Each structure stands twice: as C-alpha cells, then as structure tokens.
C-alpha cells in the first residue's frame, strides 16, 4: 500500500518550536538544501542530524514552526531525511510552506503524549491514522482538507500553478524521496 509511511519518531514535545530552532538564521546565507540539512534542529538538538534516518518523522507540540517565513526550515527538515512532520498544530507560514513544497505536515492534538523518541510509527494517509508500532496504540490525525489534498497531490504549489496556467513544470534536483506517492491522495486526472 502506497499510502502508508513508516519510520522512527524524533519527539520535541515543547510548544512553539520556532524556525530559528529548525534552521538558525546564521545559515540563511545559502539556500542549498543539502547544506541546510546539516544544520537542521541544531540549536535545539545538536545530535538530530546524526541520528535521523531517511523516512523518519518529527513529532512536536503546538505552534510548530512559528517565527520567520523562511522556507529553509521545510527544506532543511526534508533534506535531512524527514518525510513528514506530525504536530499538535502549526504556525501558519510553516504550514503554508510545507504544503507549497508538497511536504506533509499533519495535525494531531496531543500526539506528543502518545509517542516517545525512537518509537516506530506508521502514518496511513488513507485511513487518517498514526499508529505507534512500538507501543501498539493508534491516533487519528485531523483530516486533510480537499485543498490540501489537491496541493499535495500536485506535488506542491509550483506544479499546481503550472497546471492552472498551462506551464511546464521541471522538478528541482531530487531531494530524499518519500516512500509514499502523495499523488495517490487524489483521483487521477485532477
């Protein structure tokens, strides 16, 4: 099944983890994704980058990604190998940037109490659930709205507007791939 993502959790249970913590401003002198990835979460968890495996999840409390509008925060996490963020809720620009990049950010209030760092978890997009494989528990995340699904299915804002305006979209050089096809969220032909 293509709609299930599996990986280990990195839990930051505090609320208001801001973009300066996700990627400090001192690294904004570049927008090279691989370079940014080396410094993801550096000020809050210096070991993060050495621990993270491709396909892992960041799990966080409320208002994740507050602060500056830097899309570098999304790029840094994704290029470090994170395939999806699960948080109680998000600051709006972080959520917007995730969506615009076709990067999955799901909302699940109270999730930080259900998952410990290192737990293996499974996110099922079709069922709308987050299963903690290690603990054997399951949570539902807030349903994705039709607009969010449409944007994710398109692969982000650029391919989305390319389609709307009859333009041709050329993807950027590849970043670590999700093992799930977001295009499966939407019926073919949309």
């Amino acid at each position, binding site marked *: 099944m293509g709609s299930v993502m599996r990986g280990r959790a990195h839990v930051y249970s505090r*609320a*208001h983890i*801001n973009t*300066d*913590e996700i990627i*400090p*401003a*001192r690294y*904004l*002198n*570049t*927008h090279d994704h691989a370079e940014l990835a080396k410094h993801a979460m550096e*000020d*809050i968890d210096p070991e993060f980058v050495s621990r993270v495996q491709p396909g892992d999840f960041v799990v966080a409390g*409320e*208002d994740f990604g*507050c*602060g*500056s*509008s*830097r*899309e570098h925060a*999304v790029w840094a996490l994704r290029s470090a190998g994170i395939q999806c963020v699960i948080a109680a*809720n998000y*600051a*709006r*620009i972080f959520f*917007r*940037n995730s969506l*615009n*990049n076709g990067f999955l950010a799901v909302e699940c209030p109270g999730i930080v109490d259900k998952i410990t760092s290192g737990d293996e978890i499974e996110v099922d997009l079709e069922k709308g659930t987050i299963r903690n494989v290690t603990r054997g528990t399951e949570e539902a995340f807030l349903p994705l709205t039709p*607009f969010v699904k449409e944007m994710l299915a398109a692969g*982000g*804002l*650029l391919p989305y*507007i*390319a389609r709307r*305006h009859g*333009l*041709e*979209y*050329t*993807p*950027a050089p590849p970043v670590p791939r999700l093992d799930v096809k977001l295009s499966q969220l939407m019926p073919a032909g949309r």
Partner: protein
Amino acid sequence: MARSMTITEKILAAHCGRDSVQPGEIVNVKLDLIVCHEVTTPPAIKMMAQIGVSKVFDPTKIVVTPDHFVPNKDIQTAELTKELHRWVKEQGIERYHQLGDHGICHALVPEQGYILPGMTAVCGDSHTTTLGAFGAFASGIGSTDLAAALATGELWFRVPETLRFNVKGKLPHGVYAKDLILYIISKTGVDGARYCTMEYHGSAITAMSMESRLTICNMAVEAGGKSGIMEADKVTAKYLKKRTTQPYTVFQSDAGAHYKDVYEIDASVLEPMVALPSLPSNGRFIGEVTKIAIDQAYIGSCTNARIEDLREAARIMKNRHVAPGVKAIVVPATSGVWRQALREGLFDIFADAGCVISTATCGACLGGHMGVLGKGEVCISTTNRNFVGRMGHPEAQVYLASPATVAASAIAGRIADPRDYMEKPLPRRGEKEVLVGVAEGDRRPQEDYLWGV
C-alpha cells in the same frame, strides 16, 4: 446585499472578483504589491525557472531592496545580493533600492509611499504584516509562494478570521506603541492569533502617528497572526499625501461584521513593557525586571528604528553616557532614516553617548551581523523576536522593549525604566513632521484620493 464584512474580508473579496468572502474559504487573490529582499528572492528566481517563466508578471508592481545582510557580510551573502541585482536588471524593475538608498523592506515601503490603503501586498518575510497599518491586506509568505506571486500576480489565501482589538485611552508618558503591542501579545500568547488577522480600533490607535501604527502591525506575526490591519484615516491620508499621487480605496469594517474575538484594552493604565527571554509573549511591566544587568543595547529593526524611535532614544541619551562595559548599537531602519537622523543631530547625541551607528540593515535582529551575541550575553533590544538563538548564541538572552527603554537601559547598564530618565512629559503633539526618505525636489503635489467604500 452582500453580507457584513471586516475590512480584511472586503479587501480580499475585491481582489478575487467576489462580492463577499467568508473566513475559512480558500481564495485566489490578485496582488498589488510584491516586495523582494535578498534572502528569500534568489530561491524564488530559481523556482520561476522551474515553471518556465522568465519574466515577472508586472515589473511595476514589484519593489526590491537588499536588507538582511547589507552591506554583504560574507561571500555567500555577496552572491545573494549579486543575484538579486542581476535579476532586477534583467526584469526591468524600477523600484529598486540599492545600497545607499536601501532599507529594511517593511520600513522602506511605507516611507516611499509604495503601500496604499486597500492594497494586497506580500513579501517573502514574516513581518510583512507591518504594511497593514495603512488599511491594506499584507502577509508574509515563503519562497515558493513568492515564485508563484512573481510569475502570476496572484496567490491562494485562506480567508482569515478576525480578532478585534479596541484600544481606548491615551498612552501614558514614557509608554509607546511597542509597549502596547508587547502587552497585547502577553495577553494573546504567541499563537493566540494563529491564522487570524488582528484588527485595531479605538482612540489610542487613531491618536498614533503612522510610525507607531507600523510598530503595532509589525508584531502581528508574534501573536501568530496572518496580518494586522488598521483602517486608513486622516493620519494615513496626511502621511501618504506627501509621498504619492496614486489613487487608493479606503475600506472599513461593517458595523455588523463578525469577529472571532474582541479584546477591550485601556491604554491609559499601561506601563513600559519588557518581554523576557525567549518568547515575545513574556511581557512584564518594567517594575518587575529592572535589576537585570545587560551586555548590549540594540536599537534597530523593522519594528522600532524609524525616525521617531531614534528621536525618543536620543532624548534619553542626550548629555549622558552608556554604562561602562555595555555595547550600544544604533541601526536606523532605512537610508532615509539614517540621513534624517544625521541632519537632526541625533548621531552626535548617540556618538557622544558612546554608541556605534550602523548603516540600515537587519543586522543583529536575526543574528546576522552588526552585534551578534555570544554565549551567555544579555541584550535588551527594540526588535521583535527574542527566540532562542535569534540574535546569536542559543544561550544568549534577549529582552524586547521600546527604544526609550533600551536607551535608558544602555545608560543604566541594567534594564531601566525610561521614565526615570525623562524630567517632564515629552511634547508629543505639534512636533514638526519631517518627510523621511524622499528628497525635497521629489515631493509630489497633492491629488485627490478616493475616500469611501
């Protein structure tokens, strides 16, 4: 008849070809103004190429200035401004403010008369909310959004719910717009306005100068807001009259408009505020914090480095000296403010007091340059964020306050109450207004503007 709407709903409806919109709807909005700086624009330029667009949708709707790391702080930032420069020339963008004419974008755009009531404006920067002080919808976006905006002139938005703030009363002596917004954020929390717009009304707001209003709307994002907004009035019209001849449309909220929440605030009981590390919502009245010793006092940023801010700081520093061991740094928000401060003799006051003065730049506000903090250092700053690591080392501590409080603290060597450094109530009214950022010969004649809707 269309349903009753807030000012924000009206502006969004007018820009998506609809009679009315409702909170929660996703609408595709036509953009009137796109502001670009050197950090988030170069990635957007690359992304435009990814969708095969080589020309921006309309160069006359774009304003460009380098601001975050100017003058270039290292080779990489030099490459960013170089790329920005190349692109501006290639696209034929005329409203381009190069080094010497540059400024922090959210301060430069109002000063130049580029933002007008009723507009929709975006910038790849979260403090774009500042521009809402003119009765415009202005919101921060990321680089992908910016690419889409530059390529197509439109962008998707979720129509925000509105929080209404009725601020009555008069701000007391020594208490400023910054104190008011820190107070408000201490009440809402850093996510109390998440996804919402913060709409301000009341006698305390209408009595404020445009510059003070900008300070309030600047920090909407510190409460999680999508935008901040104030209805344009006589103060707005007077400010714009000297800067532009462009017509504009003034929108106002309907009496029956729906608000998610309404806050009633009495400005007359406020005192100077200080936000403790490491959240802007940690605001306290100054009485609770005056014993904290400081290493640095920073006056700068898009929040509080306009001419009125520098005047307030200078009033306190005049004939005084910064405490031994304290680094005091003054960073005017724009080149126009810088020149005006020089002419008014404010730099003499700062220099004699032992401050250093920089060119306009974001500088240390985001830990870029011009006063980055080391481990354990304590800074009181007129900026808008005191997050962990924001101004430098993650173990540095940042306190946020008004320019007057920062100036008083620089003199005292510890966080200090500015009222202790002011002998008598300051003359707030009738002060000669000086036009910042526009050369004498460039002043444009008045023209009628549209008032109504």
